[in-house]
């Protein structure tokens, strides 16, 4: 073996050429090429994520949102919205809700999350209180995580158009407490209903 190696180093390996041709035969080359191409193009959807059905995940988000709402109520100054923002409606009529399909519900939830994300980002930029800023940062992270949870439940991503979703589904708020109140209620209501009724989690429910 060593001899062969030294042989190889000196370039005197007589078997070199034959070995190469033996390993890199045509089928092997084709297979390697195929692998490279497939990896590059990544065809098909990615493997479905493991569904996140634990209700404690959303409960955690709701609790943190409530903490932020309490913090903004106690805040005296430096906790105001610079301008009014559009927020999703949080009211749920069960009869109406149950008549909607899962996709429509998911779209409604995702557009609401998008709106809230935009509104909270605006609040973050206008708030100077450090504690509230921390809470808002938490809320923004939780919103993104909620989107991830929805994705894990096989809900397709939906981004509302630039003009925004239908007007009847939105409100306008102008104060920080109102905004955070809406945020809490949205999580508690529509998001919670969507997640607890998700099809991907129904098999686990005994």
């Amino acid at each position, binding site marked *: 073996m060593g001899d062969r190696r030294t042989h190889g180093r000196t370039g005197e390996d007589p078997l070199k050429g034959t070995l190469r041709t033996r390993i890199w035969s045509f089928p092997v080359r084709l297979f390697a090429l195929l692998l490279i191409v497939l990896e590059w193009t990544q065809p098909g959807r990615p493997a479905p994520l493991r569904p996140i059905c634990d209700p404690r995940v959303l409960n955690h988000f709701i609790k943190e949102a409530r903490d932020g709402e309490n913090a903004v109520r106690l805040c005296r100054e430096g906790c105001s919205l610079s301008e009014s923002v559009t927020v999703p*409606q949080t009211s749920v009529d069960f009869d109406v809700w149950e008549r909607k399909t899962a996709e429509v519900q998911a779209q409604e939830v995702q557009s609401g999350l998008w709106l809230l994300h935009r509104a909270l980002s605006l609040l973050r930029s206008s708030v100077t209180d450090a504690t509230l800023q921390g809470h808002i940062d938490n809320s923004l992270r939780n919103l993104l995580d909620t989107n991830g949870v929805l994705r894990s439940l096989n809900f397709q991503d939906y981004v509302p158009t630039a003009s925004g979703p239908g007007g009847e589904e939105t409100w306008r708020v102008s104060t920080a407490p109102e905004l955070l109140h809406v945020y809490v209620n949205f999580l508690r209501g529509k998001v919670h209903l969507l997640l*607890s*009724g998700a099809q991907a989690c129904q098999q686990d429910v005994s």
Partner: protein
Amino acid sequence: MTCDHLKRWLVFCVVLCVQMAPSSVLSSAQGFENKVSLLLREEPNNPKCFAEGRKDFTCFWEEDEERAGHVGQYSFTYAYQQENSSRCPLRTQQAPHGKKRFICHLNRTQMFVQMDINVRRDGLMIHNRSLLIDLVFLLNPPGNLNVSQTESLSQLLVSWVPPVLKYMEDSMMYQVSYSPADSSQGQVTQVEEVRASSEVVLRGLSPGTRYKVRVRVKLDGVSYNGYWSAWTDPVFMETAPGGVDLLIVSLVFTISLIISLLSVTIIRSHRRFIIRKVWPAIPNPESKFQGLFTVYGGDFREWLSHTNGSLWLRPAFFSSEEYPSAVEVLSELSPSPTLPPKASRAAPVERREEEVGEEKTSRKEEGSGGVKVWQETPHDHWLMEQLRAFHRLPAPCSQSSLLESQDAYVTLNTRQPGCHEEEEGHLDDIMEESSPLEVLFASWGGAGSSESRFDLGSLRLSSASGHLSSGSSLEYPNLTWPPKGPGYTYMAGADSGVCMDYSPMSVSRIEDVGKTLVHNEYKNEIRSERRPVLTRQPSVHTDW
């Protein structure tokens, strides 16, 4: 006929319906009354509002009968956030304690949104409240409460069916209250909180006790919130009666039986050993001096005079507890004056075979025992002197201290010393037992025995062999010693602690007085345990 039949059937059905309907109505009415009374306790605000399910909503308030107006005077209006207000139709009810109850019921609600409620009487607002409907749930109590025993004696399994509410089962929490049914014992009711589960195992209960268990439900407050529901009807169940498990009892019994049998067997087999260890026998010389204490009250002289003296000469004298001590009674080959110093040492005594008798024939030294020949009669007197000297000398070694602690001095009787009882072959065995080497002198006190002998036992230790071999003892049938008492010959003897194993190599008895020569070869087998005692003086031993 058919009409009559039909009429009868109709009446029958009506009666049945009338009977059945009120029960459900009654139950719901009863449930409502319970909730009303509960809310009256829990909620301070007016109007008191609660939601029983996902879609219904009920508000009420009570006023005194005298001051209450007509229901038409009141208006109940509500408005959701950023919506127009709506009006709720009111109805009245008779309440206990002379009160009038006004009730508003909605069949369609919106949750997760703020609701502003306004109650006016004749245009004047009397009640105002703002709430979220999803936060004022008041559920029905859980149903199908079931309590059952478990394998453990102190546990009970409690299970129930949660109220049927879609989407909300995961948000419910329960309280299980349990207490011994016999509350006269003053036991505190305990409450177990359960979340997101519809069964629980109660632990830490007393076995064989009857328990009262009930459950109530509430929404956990994260997504939904509300009031604690009413308690279910109590269910009674007994825990399994206390008592040891049968298997454990049988196992314990079997094991204890086995252990007791083993211990009894061991104790019985080692009974003597145990008794000796626990209750060591106090050495009592009574066995050797029979009748000494019982008859003569301890007077040794009396006892001696009255006994034939054959008793104490037995090898039973040589008790095993006596320690070996080396005694040199006689000198070596020549009875030189230099010998006394040796005699003064408690050195291992060398055995000698002594020539007895007037013949004064010299003995040949027997190799095994290191027996040396004892020469002539002039030895005799010298011997006595040596003995006396030894008698007076203090014990130079520890062994002789042991010596002094024992009855080293044995008064002889006319009888022959037990060591040389060749006729009694068993004596050899007896001598084996006896550890000390006693030097015995037979007295010639005219006891009718023409034979009198005394034996001097000397012991030589050979450390190399590890066992002692003793030479033969001397015999002096003709020695006349100044008697110290009537018929007593006093001798100095030392316990050597050596068990003498007499193997007669050449044994001849003294037939006549002083005429015979007795050879005795004694081979002692010293028990190994004695060796440490003896080998304390290795220098002494090796001299010999």
